[in-house]
């Protein structure tokens, strides 16, 4: 009679199952390694976006919520929250405009930025695991969210859309280690690059050697690189053990909603060949862009 193990399985059967377990583990490991190639990683993007749509896009009201009057209460809360969000947006817009006005005064003939259009969405899932810190919001391409859209909430900048589904968007938080945001001090004007720290505060890199931030001053986006609009509130500067850190503004009030505004669009400059040559024009005294390039 075949000897049974402690778990009551025959040795042959047990080794077959052990083999299956190893095959599964190695299969999963091969899948993980294969995804280091961007082409293969992008191959799985539709799966993620469809799953995100299922998780984030479902906003149905249950019968129980209707019976208990929870729907009416939630509607009232939503109205009030919308009002607060609207007011907070005005506040953020005022800070942003004041900062921008100063820049306009300094630089003449500056092109104005287009008015902010945005989609407000509810945060339906968030992951605080060891991988990228992201949020899932229940608005996607169908609601007018654009790839690379900027997410803000009542406290300030939240992050950037990194994955866009039909009904959902995944937002990479500015608290993530891999996130990079060009920022500046509101008063000092010192520029730096912000990335997520491990202790819940933002870390700054590429700081100038001589000048520093002012303790407690507001940190705003500087719009360098063109990924973020200028003047969005990111947080406050803190000097901790001789190192400048950023206390995030969005962490103060996370109301469960984010507004996703389109990323700033900077038109690519026209190629030099298509511009009119200075010799061909009747007014030789006027300097052309092509001349600027030659110099």
């Amino acid at each position: 009679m075949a000897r049974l193990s402690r778990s009551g399985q025959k040795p042959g059967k047990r080794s077959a199952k052990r083999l299956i377990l190893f095959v599964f583990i190695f299969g999963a490991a091969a899948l993980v390694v294969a995804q280091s190639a961007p082409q293969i990683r992008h191959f799985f993007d539709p799966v993620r976006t469809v799953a995100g749509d299922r998780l984030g896009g479902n906003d149905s009201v249950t019968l129980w919520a209707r019976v208990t009057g929870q729907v009416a209460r939630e509607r009232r809360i939503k109205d009030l929250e919308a009002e607060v969000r609207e007011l907070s947006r005005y506040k953020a817009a005022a800070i942003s405009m004041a900062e921008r006005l100063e820049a306009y005064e300094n630089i003449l003939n500056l092109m104005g930025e287009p008015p902010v259009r945005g989609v407000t969405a509810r945060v339906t899932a968030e992951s605080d695991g060891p991988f990228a810190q992201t949020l899932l919001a229940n608005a996607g391409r169908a609601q007018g969210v654009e790839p690379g859209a900027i997410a803000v909430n009542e406290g300030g900048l939240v992050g950037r859309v990194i994955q866009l589904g039909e009904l959902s968007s995944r937002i990479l938080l500015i608290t993530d280690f891999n996130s990079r945001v060009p920022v500046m001090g509101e008063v000092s004007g010192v520029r730096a690059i912000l990335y997520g720290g491990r202790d819940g505060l933002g870390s700054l890199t590429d700081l100038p050697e001589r000048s520093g931030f002012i303790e407690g001053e507001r940190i705003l986006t500087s719009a360098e690189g063109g990924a973020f609009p200028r003047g969005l509130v990111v947080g406050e500067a803190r000097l901790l053990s001789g190192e400048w850190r950023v206390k995030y503004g969005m962490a103060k009030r996370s109301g469960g909603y984010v507004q996703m505004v389109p990323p700033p669009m900077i038109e690519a400059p026209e190629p030099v060949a298509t511009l009119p040559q200075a010799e061909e024009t009747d007014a030789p005294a006027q300097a052309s862009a092509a001349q600027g390039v030659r110099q």
Partner: protein
Amino acid sequence: MAKRTSGRQRKSLWSQSGPTPRLLFGAFAIAAVGLLGLTPKTLFGLSIAWPYAALWGAVGWGRVGLSLRPMLLLIVFGLIQDISFNAPFGCFVIVNLVVYGFSAWIASMFDVMNEPLVAVVAPVLQFISGFLVLWLLASALEDHAVRATPLLAALLTTGVIYAMSHRLFDLGRTPGQQVGQAT
């Protein structure tokens, strides 16, 4: 006259149910806890460390030895976790299966059902190994040492809740095995 009582103790429905209903019930519990964990989790302004529910299954189901059905369920849960945590596909599958295999290996080496010390120490070691594998995988794939604090908090909640609800994930015997076959 003294009431005549039966010599046998009345058995609960759970003790009478086989491994397949137990497996399904445990899977349902894991799915429910996992789905709840997707929503933003704050209590009085403090964020809650949500447990990694699939590890309960990996630890509990592995105690009766290896079987195909729990493995497939753990793969499915792992893939769902990969999507919800925005991890590369396969990461959580590896974690779940490694813990499951470790649990089954410990069960084959020691008496995890009757030895009180082993019954306590084994799940602790299995959870720690699971989170260690997860931390190593995440750090290797993200190209930097990822934060350990949220993982430790999740490890604590996962362990504490498992200590209270481990019976839910006790299959009694391997799925597919006949009654009386197990020792």
